[in-house]
């Protein structure tokens, strides 16, 4: 009973935590314009998409005529490059009138803009800056924003359910109930996937299990952040005692769209960026100890880790 309650409660707590983090991020971003926000958010954009496309399978074994069911939670984490905790974005040879306050003596000049400071995962103590230069001389500087969370680990939690076992097919769903929060809007997390193993068409002595699959997901945090991610993959696994060792290749994409209104200018800001991770090699292992515990690593342009805990048969 306690275990079931925890299983039901954990995803809700995760959703609330994610929503609070999203609200904090929105509060920070509304203080800056688009170029700053885009550079500041880059590590989040690329890590979030990579996380979404992680932990999509923990074995390639799917029975052809035996119903299987499992439910559990997947915890993903992208380990960022050290340099992703700060950024420096330079916009050269621009009309400074677009960036300086009205009436500034250099508003009519052509100059350079340097935006620099912690990223969303940089120092929470340090505040970034936006500096305007004319001929190498800084003529105006405005404060940016601090980091949201000082870490190189970008986590994502996903409750997941799988049903399969007919003709080598298995369906997966990642889902969290919608929350409607005042001042923020609805939060939503939905992912659907399908896997197919051709092993029932092969010789029973075929040495490994094979599987191909697709998974598509979307996350919305109010109207502020919307993400889409999808992955097409092929995998193989082999059982050694209580462990399934598995590996695979994936071709994937992800997009994050950010919308907000800058507070001091009342200007709407909207930008959309594709995730950096477009393909990966996955290696991992699942221990079958009554519950299934899996650990894996996805290696592509980003490096992503996954731990999973699945109950079922």
């Amino acid at each position, binding site marked *: 009973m306690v275990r079931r309650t925890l299983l039901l409660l954990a995803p809700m707590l995760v959703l609330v935590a994610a929503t609070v983090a999203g609200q904090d991020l929105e509060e920070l971003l509304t203080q800056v314009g688009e170029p700053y926000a885009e550079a500041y958010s880059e590590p989040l954009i690329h890590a979030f998409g990579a996380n979404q496309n992680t932990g999509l399978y923990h074995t390639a074994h799917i029975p052809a005529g035996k119903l299987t069911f499992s439910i559990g939670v997947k915890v993903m984490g992208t380990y960022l*490059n050290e340099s992703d905790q700060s950024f420096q974005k330079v916009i050269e040879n621009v009309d400074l009138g677009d960036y300086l306050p009205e009436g500034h003596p250099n508003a009519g000049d052509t100059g350079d803009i340097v935006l620099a400071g912690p990223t969303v995962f940089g120092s929470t103590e340090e505040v970034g800056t936006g500096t305007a230069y004319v001929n190498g001389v800084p003529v105006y500087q405005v404060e940016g924003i601090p980091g949201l969370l000082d870490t190189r680990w970008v986590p994502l939690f996903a409750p997941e359910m799988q049903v399969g076992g007919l003709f080598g097919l298995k369906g997966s769903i990642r889902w969290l109930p919608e929350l409607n929060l005042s001042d923020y809007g609805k939060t939503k997390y939905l992912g659907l996937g399908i896997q197919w193993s051709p092993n029932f068409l092969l010789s029973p002595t075929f040495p490994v299990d094979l599987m191909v699959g697709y998974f598509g997901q979307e996350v919305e945090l109010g109207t502020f952040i919307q993400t889409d991610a999808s992955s097409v993959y092929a995998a193989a696994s082999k059982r050694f005692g209580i462990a399934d060792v598995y590996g695979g290749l994936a071709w994937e994409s992800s997009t994050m769209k950010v919308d907000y209104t800058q507070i001091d200018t009342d200007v709407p800001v909207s930008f959309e960026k594709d995730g950096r991770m477009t393909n990966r090699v996955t290696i991992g292992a699942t221990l079958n100890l009554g519950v299934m515990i899996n650990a894996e690593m996805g290696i592509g342009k980003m490096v992503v880790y996954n731990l999973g805990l699945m109950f079922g048969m």
Partner: protein
Amino acid sequence: MRKIFTILMMLLLAGWLLAGCSSEETAPNDPLPELTNEDVAHQSGYMAMALVEMAPVSLEFSGKADASDGRYQYTFADPEIQGDVQLYFEQGDAPSGYDVADYSQAWTGDEAPLALYPIEGGIAWLLAFSLESVIDQGAGTAVIGGAGTLTVGNYEAAFTVVGLAIERGGDWPAGGYMTFTNEGITATVTFDGDNTATIEIGDITWMLNLSNGTLTEL
């Protein structure tokens, strides 16, 4: 036994993987806009003017009159220069009062650079330095040398001061020079003995008016 072996192998594999991989950089890390020779000449000119303001402190200190350990602090509160300079005076290798000293050191404290405001309404340039002076009280002169850094927005310049000669009551350095390097461009600023200094970068020469900061290419 087989189970334990399997788990150990997995732990070893996990450790090996954790240790060996890293994500690509995703945050922009653009180089700063390239500076021109003239940009660096302007910056070195402002630095030279700040030096002219600060240098007399080692010779004409007028703050606290008694410091048995030779240590003083001078506070700049001008519109162009703000902050504290730490000073140490000695005579014959022993701490002394400023008015009898034959040697002094001047420096900015850790994390407490001077703030320069060379552009009206502009942002502070942060000046950190450590200078030494050899003082001749009888002649009323001092010769200053040392080094420091000047943070100009996102740029970090370094400078050295060599043989900067000042006189008690004098308006301008009698001689000496400063080298100033920013983004790989080095300017040599030579004090002409009057209200001008000569700035050279490669084969380009400017005359700097120390009174108003005007730079004229020669």
